[in-house]
């Protein structure tokens, strides 16, 4: 495999799963949702992440089932392509290149071979030239097809995908924008538009936020900014249209959805209450309150058995039709702001940051799964705007992950600042953090930074605060309680300057504290000031020690756009460059340091080693926003890439958070290829029903199967054909992508025939094949075990010589092929 060096920014792990409405497969077994650059498939029963549909190069912006084939799903992306997937197997079937950034996707049964897309025709996305276009998908066997047959249905439409929807079997399409509702009838090719007043007397905000069409009746439900729901009827008249208004939501209605039978209307908004309105009598409604974050999307399965809501706290709830929450799929919670740093829990290697109000969340980026929340504040959070409540603002782990220090504060705006420093110990028995010490008045003013000592022997915490002091905290044993608690060990200051950052060297022998423009170095052993370093002008913004072989270097960035590298052995400036670094992050597993610099509307990344000022890797225009938080996430297994520019990604991955709360990372092409190939190996059925029951049963089955194979092993001896690989492929490819069975059948039988010398043996082997096939039919779950078995056999047969057939034998075979094999089924059935 040729190593490709192109490293690109991807959304991988921790991305928004609430960006677009999740969709539920027709059998209600899977729920699909867009997640960054990929589409994720979850099981509705176990909430387990099954697999990713990967292949887009940019944010996926819409998904919809192929109306012609329920097992296929279309996805569109901002990279300008529409892809058709087999979502059960995770196979990309086709790619249609549209060429414009796509924002949403709509399909309808009535319009076969046509998909409707919201595209941005303009050069920039902000000039609001969104259009709804119909695209004829060319019928071609190729994998990648350019679809150029675009016809505009409507221009100047809302980029919000909830504001466009198909009506009654695709007879018309309704789309709203601001205060106008438009209905386009395909048959008449006519658009009717209805507008509301900007405000009526009661100062209502009438702008449309979402619309939904009844599946069988001509009725359009529209949600509005003031929380009203209107049901529009008779909309094929210019004047005699009519609507009825319902008002329950007190704030904007975010999404509306009719159940597939049309008997109910579901609505959700900021209140995080799912409301079910009875369609015939809208005064009857049911509520499902306290769902968590505000509801951003609602969808219903085709059989009406399941509903799905996506929430603003990056969560998908699966709700049964009896209005009970049956499952939760939690993504990485990102509120309005991440106030803690991005951290890695040294034990679980999970990403840690503040999530739910007052909590720290642990998120596994590798499995892309939310692990758990740690309640830091331990107070009830009141969901109301304008309240001043405690928030976790700082958190830091020690090297081994056995201690966690957190700072929570409230009163950011007012003068009465209140904050607590809490220290948490890891409890091995409960596998969780337990509160050890709470320090109420750690400092007299706000804590600006803190860090644990990096040495293994002593755990020490240093905090710096705006009161001009830094404090070192150590464990002290309490004689009476026989429990360690933390107390202040040392208070340091420097000329009454305010300390901003603190950092321990890799071995923990030096503590660096920055006091505005001055860098001070202290010895934690004796608490003496070792030296001061100063490179005016500009206050020091960030501090960072080099690692491993570069541990003698100390890096600092200043507000005056200077990146300095100090050699601590010579106490001299090793080198400095002028670059506006917004974030400096060192990789704990290598010497590498990543610096994000923000310059005129885009962020650049430089990765370098402190020992050499030449960057290892640099990428311009990583993203358009400023990057404040970044973290190196260690890989589970080191990655071997010989390419020089990719080497820095070998041990760990760099994740960073933009100001838009997008969690991005870098991925190299090799890595992607590997992931793609590994994902192909996964088959869905093995993981669909990983219920405890299945685990028991499955184990049992496997054992049984093993027994079977063992007993049959001698009988199996007849060498297996080279055709078995083809059979395997045949059996593993979904039926709908295969050629017709009649075509296959002869090929299949032929593949069985060629390999063997004798008819009798041939019969045996075909019998075997039939056996295994039969078994697969019997239980899907068994498939995996069976596969393994077959694979084994296939491998075993590779070396075997194929015996040649004589012409007479062949003739005999042909005759045999025509004979009826139905008797074999009874043979199979009678098999023990």
């Amino acid at each position, binding site marked *: 495999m040729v190593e490709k060096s192109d490293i690109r920014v991807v959304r991988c792990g921790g991305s928004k799963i609430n960006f677009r409405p999740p969709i539920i497969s027709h059998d209600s077994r899977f729920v699909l949702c867009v997640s960054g650059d990929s589409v994720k498939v979850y099981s509705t029963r176990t909430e387990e992440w099954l697999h990713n549909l990967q292949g887009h190069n940019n944010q996926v912006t819409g998904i919809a089932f192929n109306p012609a084939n329920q097992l296929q799903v279309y996805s569109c992306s901002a990279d300008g392509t529409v892809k058709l997937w087999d979502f059960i197997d995770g196979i990309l079937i086709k790619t249609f290149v549209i060429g414009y950034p796509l924002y949403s996707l709509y399909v309808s049964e009535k319009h076969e071979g046509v998909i409707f897309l919201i595209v941005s025709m303009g050069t920039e996305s902000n000039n609001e030239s969104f259009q709804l276009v119909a695209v004829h998908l060319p019928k071609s066997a190729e994998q990648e097809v350019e679809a150029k047959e675009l016809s505009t249905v409507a221009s100047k439409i809302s980029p919000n995908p909830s504001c466009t929807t198909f009506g*009654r079997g695709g007879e018309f399409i309704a789309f709203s924008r601001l205060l106008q509702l438009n209905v386009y009838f395909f048959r008449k090719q006519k658009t009717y538009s209805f507008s509301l007043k900007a405000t009526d007397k009661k100062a209502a905000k009438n702008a449309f936020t979402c619309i939904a069409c009844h599946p*069988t*009746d*001509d*009725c359009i439900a529209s949600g509005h900014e003031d929380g009203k729901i209107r*049901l529009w*009827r*008779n*909309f*094929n*008249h210019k*004047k*005699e*249209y*009519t*609507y*009825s*208004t319902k008002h329950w939501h*007190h704030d904007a209605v975010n999404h509306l959805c009719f159940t597939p039978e049309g008997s109910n209307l579901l609505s959700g908004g900021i209140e995080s209450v799912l409301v079910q309105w009875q369609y*015939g*009598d*809208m*005064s*009857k409604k049911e509520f499902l309150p306290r769902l968590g974050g505000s509801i951003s999307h609602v969808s219903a399965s085709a059989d009406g058995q399941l509903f799905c809501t996506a929430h603003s706290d990056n969560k998908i709830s699966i709700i049964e039709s009896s209005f009970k929450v049956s499952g939760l799929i939690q993504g990485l919670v990102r509120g309005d702001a991440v106030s803690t740093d991005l951290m890695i829990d040294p034990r679980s290697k999970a990403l840690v940051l503040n999530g739910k109000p007052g909590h720290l969340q642990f998120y596994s980026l590798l499995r892309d799964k939310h692990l758990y929340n740690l309640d830091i504040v331990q107070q009830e959070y009141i969901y109301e705007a304008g309240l001043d409540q405690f928030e976790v603002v700082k958190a830091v782990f020690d090297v081994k992950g056995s201690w966690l220090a957190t700072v929570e504060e409230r009163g950011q705006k007012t003068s009465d600042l209140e904050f607590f420093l809490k220290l948490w110990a890891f409890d091995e028995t409960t596998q969780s953090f337990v509160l050890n010490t709470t320090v109420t008045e750690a400092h007299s003013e706000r804590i600006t930074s803190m860090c644990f000592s990096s040495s293994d022997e002593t755990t020490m915490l240093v905090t710096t605060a705006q009161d001009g002091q830094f404090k070192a905290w150590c464990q002290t044993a309490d004689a009476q309680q026989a429990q360690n608690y933390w107390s202040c060990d040392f208070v340091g200051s420097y000329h009454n300057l305010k300390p901003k950052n603190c950092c321990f060297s890799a071995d923990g022998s030096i503590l660096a504290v920055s006091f505005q423009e001055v860098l001070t170095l202290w010895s934690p052993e004796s608490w003496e000031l070792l030296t001061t370093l100063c490179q005016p002008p500009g206050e020091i913004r960030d501090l960072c020690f080099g690692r491993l072989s570069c541990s003698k270097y100390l890096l600092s960035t200043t507000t005056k756009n200077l990146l300095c590298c100090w050699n601590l052995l010579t106490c001299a400036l090793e080198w400095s460059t002028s670059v506006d670094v917004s974030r400096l992050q060192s990789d704990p597993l290598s010497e590498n340091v990543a610096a994000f610099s923000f310059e005129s509307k885009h962020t650049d990344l430089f990765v370098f080693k402190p020992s050499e000022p030449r960057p290892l890797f640099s990428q311009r225009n990583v993203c358009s926003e400023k990057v404040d938080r970044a973290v190196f996430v260690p890989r589970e297994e080191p990655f071997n890439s010989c390419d020089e520019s990719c080497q820095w990604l070998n041990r760990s991955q760099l994740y960073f958070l933009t100001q838009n709360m997008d969690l991005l990372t870098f991925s190299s092409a090799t890595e992607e290829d590997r992931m793609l190939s590994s994902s192909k190996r996964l088959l869905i059925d093995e993981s669909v029903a990983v219920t405890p029951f299945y685990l028991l049963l499955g184990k049992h089955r496997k054992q049984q199967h093993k027994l079977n194979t063992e007993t049959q092993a001698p009988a199996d001896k007849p060498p297996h054909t080279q055709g078995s690989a083809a059979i395997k492929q045949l059996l593993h490819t979904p039926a709908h992508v295969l050629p017709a069975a009649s075509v296959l059948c002869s090929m299949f039988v032929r593949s069985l025939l060629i390999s063997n010398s004798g008819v009798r043996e041939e019969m045996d082997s075909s019998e075997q094949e039939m056996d295994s096939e039969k078994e697969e039919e019997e239980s899907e779950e068994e498939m995996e075990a069976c596969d393994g078995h077959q694979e084994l056999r296939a491998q075993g047969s590779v070396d075997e010589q194929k015996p040649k057939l004589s012409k007479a034998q062949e003739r005999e075979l042909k005759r045999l092929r025509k004979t009826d094999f139905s008797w074999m089924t009874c043979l199979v059935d009678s098999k023990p």
Partner: protein
Amino acid sequence: MVKHPKESEKHTKRGSAMGEFKVHRVRFFEYMPSGIRALAFNQQNERMAAAKMDGSVEIFHCSDRFFQEKIIPGRQQAGIEGLSWVGERLFSAGLNGVITEYDLTNQRVKYTIDAYGGPIWAITGNQQGTHLAVGCEDGTVKLFEVNEDKIQFERNLDRQKGRIISLSWHPSGSKIAAGMMDMIQVFNVETGHSIHRILVDRGFGTSRGKECVVWSVVYLSDGTIISGDSVGMVKLWRDDTGTLIKSHNITKSDVLSLSVSQNEDSIVAGTSEGFVVQFQFLSMVLENNDKDWVRTRTFRNHTHDVRAVAEITTAVASGGMDTQLVVRPFLDKHEVKSSASKLRKIQFPHRSLVSCARKAGTLLFQYPGHLELWRLGESEGEGIPGSSLLLKRKPEKLLHLKVKGEDHIRCSAVSSCGEWIAYSTTSSLRLYKLHCDSNNVSITKISKLPKVLGSASQLCFSSDSSHLFSASTQSSVHMVSLSQSECKFVATFKTKSGSHQAIHLLTASEDGKWLASANIDNEVHIYNLQTRKAHCTVPIYSSAVSAMAIHPTTNCLFMVHADQQIFEFSIEQKEYTDWSRLVQRQGLHKIWLERDTPCLNVTFNQKNPSHVILHDMYMFCIIDQSQPLPDSKSQFLNQLTLRSLPEEQRKSYSHAFKVCKTFKELLCVDVMCDQSLVVVERPLEDITAQLPAPIKQKKFAT
């Protein structure tokens, strides 16, 4: 009886062109309109009849901006429960158990007939115009045959247990649906037997024990019966099977009234929570005839019970306990945006209830059952414009005159010298002479009135208080001369041709030479008082005259119509004046034409003859005839702009209409002899404050 004798005196300056007035801001007229009990719409002549709680019946002209054409005053203890048009005839029935037919030309009760069934809850006529059905307390539905001159009892339908609350004829006239307690009965009119007995569910929970009152039923031609009940449901039933098709729970309290549109594609339901719900007969799938009743719009214009709704062709009219008649137009039925497509609220009667004695400085207030005479207060000194002045003498109630008998007052007048008071009920006219000593007020009734003065539809004194004009039947006006203690019949003015509708406006000229009368058929007649002959007739205009007056110096008749058009007619020349022609040629400003209340009074400023003072409910306006008319582009309400401009530029911006909206809802604006302006205000908040508390509704975030 006066609770808050509130009067403040004010100097106001309304621009240089508007003149400076001392304003008597009168707030002691405690006028209280009464609630609306029933509405009936007549499709043929586009009239809407409204029955009020006090027993009066008002007729509105729907195509003439809902001008209140006729007011038939009520009587004490004569509550009306139902109204019904049969052709052009109007019938009412009430809890006193009698059926009343009205004489609409003379605006009075024609006759009453006792139904002998106890209190009557419902009355309705069939579409054929042959029969009236009334629902009585004793459980009978009585059929009355409508004859040429009277109605006659025909027969009873099968008597039921429990009272009949509501009735509705099938459009064919062969069946009647009757809403009762807990059930709906369907009768075959031919046989008089009940065809169906439909039981209506009671409410849940605590209201389980309470009877369900079917307040209203509507029978559609396709055999659907729609009922509104006290549980808050609107239910649709099939009459052939008696089964429920659909039910809509629209309110937590009662559904009080239902009304169906002419083509049966829309129903409105009034509820006791003050909103009106519309149901429409819509096809569920477009361009498909499979239709269904769907709840669509909700109109929230009332604060109290909506006791009556009526669906007229282009709008829904509703009225209830909060005393206002609301006409909410269906925008889809209006092709263009105009004054007809605006929401209209009728709160005050379109008649003046106040008459001013200009010389004496007293005001006569007309209440339904009594009259009040007040003397205006006096202030001391001058103040800066816009400030309120201290009262030297408080306003004083001189007289409280109760009506003899049970009839309510129809019209009243006070002479400008303040010595004569006249009022009329539907049965009689009374004239009083007021003696005012320094502190003592005494009145004497003039006992010997000429026999011709039976009852008056309008009264008016001549400006020198020497004569009384009384509008009588057949559009005639009687003239009576008044001397110290007696009055003498002088003459009767009659028109040779024209209608016999009652006169609703009467005005005499300042010099005592002319008298003008206007009736509902939009005829304005002018009589010469010296020759005592009809002088001329003003060309008939399509809209009713809402106010008129004769100019004191030029003797031009100034008329304002219900559609807000203004005419000035020179009596001497018998033709429209140049100014009037100019107005018609140029057209009035859009803002003026789109006002929704008619002008109720016209007066003139003696100091400046070119000033005409008009007022409607929301504003008063001085029209300066010497100034140019505003064209369609100019700013109509330009008082503020003018004030901000320097003196020299004002001229180019100013136009003839000076509108003042400083005051609250107005009942009367008049100019006294001492050049002070009397403004009688009746703020709507004060009226709402006197209403009983509405049904308590949970309001969000309270």
